[in-house]
């Protein structure tokens, strides 16, 4: 292998695939990055056996070839180089790569590309296309609700359902559930339903950045892999085995009280209460009271208390309120999480009793539902 490329391209490429480099040494070679010539490009790949990321950078290829070298070493070295041309060349039959950039030079010991776990190819399968910002928003609104501990492995993933021209992402950790529906840019031929690790989803969302191009999604459910392809980067993720719980029946269909808030006002009151809640048991209480007569808006009291620190309460006006008085208590983190990802506009909180789940929905769209289990408290 012999080629030249630009330092900034190589550096950018390495930082993209670097996200998939394994941090732990169960299979030591996964801490390497694979460099391969691919037609007139240099192909960079890394995998931690859960996610594999591949990207291509422009290069002048003089001689075809491939090698794997320790990713961290190469990345750190390349990042210190001046923005100039890098000449890259294999030395000896196996094992070493020589880099020359201006007056800097390095020799990095590597291993044969054959020893590298094959980067999964997803070529035939069900494919779909979705707007990248649409997907990114959906991931942001859902992925945080996935479980982090592994006692129920399927819950560490995000369920992705593609059907017709609609997609649905859902995640749950046993105490909360987030479901986001959205529209596909190009409909899918067959319905699919897979569980993608939440970590992969976050990676995808990160790579989407402010990308405008749509994302191609391809799946071969029989192979257990899903491919996301956007702007010269391919992410292939393994899927989680198992069945995602049927969450439709967990979403309450009716309510006794529906209060609509201005999101920012509710969020501010919640953050204040969270300061007091964090020293107690992280409980924030909400008490909704309708206006006394027609035309006067209702209000909600957001309060928290801790035996040692003290207590606080704040009032938030409701925009509209249906039903009678209602009170419910939530874990402060869960409450803040959902209000944070909704960002702006109005949010509706639907409750029945103080011991049944509360439902958060942004006003003006039916696409997002967030269900949170309440905390049991003495009122």
């Amino acid at each position: 292998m012999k080629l030249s490329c630009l330092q900034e391209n190589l550096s950018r490429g390495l930082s993209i695939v670097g996200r998939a480099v394994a941090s732990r040494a169960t299979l030591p070679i996964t801490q390497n990055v694979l460099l391969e010539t691919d037609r007139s490009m240099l192909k960079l790949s890394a995998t931690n056996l859960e996610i594999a990321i591949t990207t291509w950078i422009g290069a002048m290829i003089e001689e075809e070839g491939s090698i794997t070298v320790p990713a961290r070493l190469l990345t750190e070295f390349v990042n210190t180089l001046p923005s100039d041309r890098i000449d890259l060349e294999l030395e000896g039959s196996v094992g070493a790569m020589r880099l020359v950039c201006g007056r800097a030079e390095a020799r990095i010991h590597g291993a044969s590309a054959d020893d590298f776990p094959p980067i999964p190819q997803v070529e035939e399968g069900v494919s779909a296309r979705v707007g990248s910002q649409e997907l990114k928003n959906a991931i942001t609104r859902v992925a945080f609700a996935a479980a982090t501990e592994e006692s129920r492995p399927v819950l560490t993933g995000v369920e992705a359902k593609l059907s017709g021209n609609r997609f649905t992402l859902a995640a749950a950790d046993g105490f909360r559930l987030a479901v986001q529906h959205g529209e596909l840019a190009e409909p899918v031929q067959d319905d699919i339903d897979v569980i993608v690790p939440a970590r992969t989803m976050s990676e995808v969302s990160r790579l989407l950045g402010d990308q405008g191009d749509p994302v191609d999604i391809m799946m071969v459910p029989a192979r257990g892999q899903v491919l996301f392809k956007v702007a010269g980067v391919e992410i292939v993720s393994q899927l989680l085995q198992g069945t995602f719980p049927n969450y439709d029946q967990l979403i309450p269909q009716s309510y006794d009280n529906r209060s609509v808030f201005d999101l920012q006002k509710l969020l501010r009151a919640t953050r204040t209460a969270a300061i007091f809640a964090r020293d107690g048991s992280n409980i924030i209480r909400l008490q909704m009271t309708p206006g006394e007569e027609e035309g006067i808006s209702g209000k909600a009291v957001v309060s928290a208390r801790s035996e040692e620190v003290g207590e606080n309460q704040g009032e938030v006006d409701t925009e509209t309120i249906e039903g009678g008085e209602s009170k419910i208590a939530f874990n402060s983190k869960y409450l803040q999480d959902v209000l944070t990802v909704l960002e702006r506009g109005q949010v509706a909180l639907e409750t029945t009793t103080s011991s049944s789940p509360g439902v958060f929905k942004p006003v003006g769209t039916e696409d997002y539902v967030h269900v949170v289990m309440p905390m049991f408290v003495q009122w």
Partner: protein
Amino acid sequence: MWQIYGQDHLTRQLDAAIKVDRLSHAYLLVGPPHVGKMSLAINMAQAVNCLAGESNAARQPAPERSLDLEPAAGLFALDDATPGPASNRLLENSGQYASGPGEEVPSQSGDVPCGDCSQCQRVAQGLHSDVRIIGVGTGDDENVNRRDIRIEQVRDIESFLNLTPYEGVCKVVVVDGAELMNTAAANALLKTLEEPPGNSLLLLLTASEDALLPTIRSRCSALYLKPAAKSELQERLTRDYNADPELAERVARISRGCIGQAVNALRDPEALEQREADLQRLQEVCEGGLDMRFDYAAELATRFNRDRDAAKELLYLWLRWWRDLLLIKEGAEEYLHNYDHVAPLRLQATRLTTGQVTAFIKRLNRTLEALDANANPRLTLEVLMLGLPLA
């Protein structure tokens, strides 16, 4: 073709299971150290991922076989309509070939693992990303003096198993020394053992089945690896490892039918010399007086404190010596381990009664148990030496 030798009873069973796609999700591989448990486990990992298995219509192997075994197939012509019994008899037949001297292990008894496809190769080289081996001290761990398998390692393999296979078709986890899992780790494994995610195979390797939690044992199908017959091992060593026939016989005897041990001994002549020295000392102690025996006990205790396993190995050497004495007393010299020392053994045997020999063997066993239970090594070994019949 299975790379494992002398375990035809198991490979036949596994072949049959693979053919009908009815492999159990968890196996317990039981056998003495170096008998080939890990080799079998690696072979099984290859078998479930082998490319030959997928394309090669593993379910209809009959036509190919009858070509290989033409005369036999003629005999079973009547059975051809019913594949079940026919293939069973063919399997039995190939078993006979296996035990015949000089025959290669018959490849017709199994299409997988082929050993040649990329999957088999990668498993063999330890590069396959869907095969994970855990044991004492694997994984990230600062503490190098670990003596158990920790719960973190078990959690790790759980999350490994929960993902779909990366390059193969089946994820394989091998737990080397399953009895060394601490209680927390063993209990954490129970759930996975009972209901592993699809496409996974768990292989637990152990030398002492009894040391495992009953809850673990009951969740696995057990495969018992047998030490190979001396003659078989000897032949294998001369053929595949180019050992000198005389040395092969000696090594075959002292390795007690465990191929791994025999090969180690072949490759490391120093180990053989060490054994000679140890046996020399053993004989001296048996002849010597109490003061010498106490010195020996002290020496052994020091060694035990430094390297548990080495000292235990020495006690096992004692145990085999006394086993040989018992065999001579009972007129079964054929089966001696220490055949190269048959003269001193015969001499010693004449001076002892059978009762004395069995009594000392019991003592040795009790000593080993006591040491495992963390008894004071010096005291325990002195007590052992006191029980050694005086010359």
